[in-house]
């Protein structure tokens, strides 16, 4: 029964929505900056999955190229974010994201 099931893009979009939701929930719940970055990666992966699913459905290669650019931007974001985390943690090792609030308005 499950073998004959044809997997359309709606399955991939539902999975993408699930992954994005888990990532967004984790971003809201967790307070460790590293885990928050991982949740951002989860959301980016969900977007990538939607991109490729749409690209296949439309018969267009642009979806895959968008994923390539998203990958590069995610890599740059992780590098800068982790550098900031290292710089903050070096000065105050016990900081969670709620305590880094010097620039509060």
């Amino acid at each position, binding site marked *: 029964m499950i073998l004959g099931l044809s997997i359309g893009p709606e399955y*991939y979009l539902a*999975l*993408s929505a699930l992954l994005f*939701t888990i990532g967004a929930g984790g971003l809201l719940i967790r307070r460790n900056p590293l*885990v928050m970055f991982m949740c951002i*990666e989860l959301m980016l992966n969900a977007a990538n999955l939607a991109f490729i699913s749409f690209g296949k459905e439309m*018969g267009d290669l642009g979806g895959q190229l968008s994923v390539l650019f998203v990958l590069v931007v995610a890599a740059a974001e992780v*590098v800068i974010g982790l*550098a900031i985390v290292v710089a903050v943690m070096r000065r105050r090792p016990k900081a969670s994201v709620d305590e880094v609030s010097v620039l509060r308005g």
Partner: protein
Amino acid sequence: MEAVTFFIAAGVALAGACGVVLFKNPVHAALSLVGTLFGVAIHFINLEAYFLAAVQVIVYAGAIVILFLFVIMLLGVDRAESIRTEPIIGQRHLALLALVALLTFGVLIGVASNGEVTGVPPQEATYSPLEGGLSIDEAIKDSTGKTIAPKENIREVGRSLFSTRYVFALEITALLLTIAVIGAVVLTRRPKGEPEPLPEDDPPSIIRSADNETDLHSATNEDNGSVVDMEANESGKNSSEELGVSSE
């Protein structure tokens, strides 16, 4: 067969995603992120994006997660974070509400559209290559006339990437990566001629500021004093270190 692959990979990806959120130890979270990334890579293969599946494994699992693990080990923050404490009042309920709303929205879009997700019938999308962009159909015609093999996918991705449609974005990407490398070096560089700042291990004699607003903010974190107090204490004790960092 595609359905079996889909459900297995979806299970792996979702289990990994739940692990990222629920594991208390950041090392375990990073390792379950690898599971999610592999699951998504299998989905990429299922969707005939062979090159991106390889890139997903190499770049994400091979570079980004290793970077995460490296930073975790460098900082020594692999202690367990208590997931029970709620730093902001009512935040959990709001997060749950937003989660349910987001999930309902996504699944509704996927299901209620009843198969016509893109509004265009599959394989009938007439994609007009504006300035040299390639569609998948054209890629089939351009090559030997067979269906796209994995190496054809790589070739077509490469050709599209360097076509006039995407080459400017590619160059901007190179600039972005250069800026990221320089930014990382600048941010993590330790100023010269200055000892490493001491870890603040919660001195018992915290000088309370006279302001009233420090007491307002000290309600949330009870174990190591308020943020403003730590700021005042630090700036009073070693102001030279503050000067050294700010002049950088």
